[in-house]
């Protein structure tokens, strides 16, 4: 077994993890580690540079020579950003979209997932497939009619175009929760039925607590999606007062680049990225797992 593994020829493409490691393999693993680390560093370097720029003075930024470490370190740009009314209202508007969508949409999605996984009704599979097909419809295809619809309904002067559609539920969430519910035995369902529990009671008292973990992960991913959304708010929001955070930082980029105030632009962008990044660092295991599952199934 070890003979072929130590052949120099086999080393380049050999990668199994649980194999007996020879000393040659160990050396190779160290080399691979160094390469992977250097490349990973290159990947995150622009983000490090982003944070560094946000602390730099205008003179340093426009000096034209390569500098990465801020000298002197200036934290004033962050307080300057946080004092801008538009930036704060961007955060508030984004939260105003997040809260109702996640609460109501999370509820409607989990209820539908429960019905699809645990209840019997005619047309179950056909209806589920029809719903699933909507994932494949790109937003760009429906954005003009949606824009017209929301304008006719008089929603475009408020955050309603971003809130109301989400409250009807999220198909990929229904899909993942349904998968999760399949792993919970249906005996619970039958026992509850015999006890005379109504269907909503079964969902609320038994299955909702059981899918808490999966629901939490899905809500987190949805939170990030709403937080980072740019195209829908750009199209649907008429007045600047309603702008969400992503639209605000993009307009900052437009406005302050003319004044070469890159430190301010970067500081605003760093703050805008922070919530999703912190969530990711805190829950990376479950987030990465749920991404990996989508490709394997």
């Amino acid at each position, binding site marked *: *077994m070890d003979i072929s*593994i130590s*052949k120099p*020829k*086999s*080393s380049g*493409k*050999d*990668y199994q*993890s649980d194999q007996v490691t020879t000393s040659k*393999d160990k050396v190779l693993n160290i080399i*691979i580690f160094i390469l992977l680390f250097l*490349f990973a*560093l290159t*990947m995150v370097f622009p*983000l490090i540079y982003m944070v560094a720029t946000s602390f730099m003075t205008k003179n340093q930024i426009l000096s*034209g*020579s*390569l*500098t990465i470490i801020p000298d002197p370190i200036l934290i004033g740009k962050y307080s300057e950003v946080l004092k801008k009314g538009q930036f704060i209202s961007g955060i508030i508007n984004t939260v105003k979209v997040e809260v109702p969508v996640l609460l109501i949409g999370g509820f409607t999605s989990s209820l*539908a997932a429960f019905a*699809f996984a645990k209840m*019997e009704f005619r047309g179950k599979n056909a209806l589920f497939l029809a*719903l699933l097909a*909507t994932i*494949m*419809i*790109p*937003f*760009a*295809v*429906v*954005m*003009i*009619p949606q*824009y*017209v*619809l929301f*304008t006719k309904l008089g929603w475009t002067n408020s955050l309603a175009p971003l809130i109301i559609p989400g*409250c009807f*539920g999220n198909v990929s969430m229904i899909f993942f929760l349904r998968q999760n519910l399949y792993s919970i035995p249906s005996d619970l369902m039958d026992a509850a039925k015999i006890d005379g529990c109504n269907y909503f009671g079964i969902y609320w008292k038994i299955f909702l607590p059981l899918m808490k973990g999966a629901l939490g992960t899905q809500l987190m991913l949805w939170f990030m999606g709403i937080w980072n959304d740019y*195209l829908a708010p750009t*199209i649907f929001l008429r007045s600047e007062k309603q702008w969400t955070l*992503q639209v605000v*930082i*993009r307009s900052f*980029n*437009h406005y302050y680049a003319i004044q070469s105030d890159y430190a301010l*632009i970067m500081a605003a*962008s*760093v703050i*805008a*990225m922070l919530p999703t*990044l912190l969530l990711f*660092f805190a829950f*990376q295991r479950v987030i*990465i797992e749920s*991404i990996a599952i989508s*490709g*394997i199934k």
Partner: protein
Amino acid sequence: MAKTKVKVHRSAMAKREERWAWLFIAPPFIGFMLFMAYPIVFALVASTSKWTGVNSLLGNIVGLRNYIKIFSDAKFWKSMATTIIYMIGIPIGMILGMTIAMGLNRKIPGKRALTTMYYVPVVSSLVAVSILWAWVFNYDYGLLNGIYKFLTGAHGPNWLGDEHMVKISMIIFMVWKGLGGTVILYLAGLQNIPRDYYEAAMIDGANGWDKFRNITLPLLSPVTFYVLITSLIGGFQVFVEVQVMTPNGGPNYSSATVVFYLFEKAFTNGQLGYGSAVAVILAIIIFIITAFNFWGQDKWVKTID
């Protein structure tokens, strides 16, 4: 008699369950009808009208004239060509992603930290990182030209201001933004390959390349196929990074994509009927890719049986 009674009773219960279930799935269905099904039908009708949102939609039906105009518009073809050129990034991302995943699948230290580093761009806000890269690509003060000058002493290329360079810049950005996702999918795929396959191959005297070609590559084909299809579908919808980095579509419209063109026609020029026709074309392209997905899955994807 008793038997029928039980049956009647049962079906009443089943009916009750059914009514409740329909009620429970009603919200996503109403949402689907209002915000997906109706808009699609609407877009189809609107695409045949010279409609601006102000005039009457049905009073300005022009048949297929919008489509003919689109197909004879050089700007449309230019944006379509650019959209496809950007897809050069897909195989680059796949090869890099697979290579990195194979490295991460070995016995190396700091696996999780490395995976996190590769994945950070994926979870970062697209607008924020587009703003960041516009700064990195900045001709006078950007990081890339800073490094270029530091290394060569000469002034670097005009990353976003040159007609050809801007395409390369966008491809670099897209590979950077998406690579982490590909790495994670390939890593999960690699961990799914049973170890004894390699042991058996080794006993047969197979070398590393043989194993890669005959075991790894075919058994990763579901992931490869999934990444390819989702990247193609995503590739036809590229918009935000283009709008943030090159608000006017780049020098000589060289960075504009199909969705950029659509957005410009519909929301900047107010040609809603014309824009709808572009949307329908986009929908057809994506529908074809999806259909190809179902057809190709049986043909090319090898699974472990």
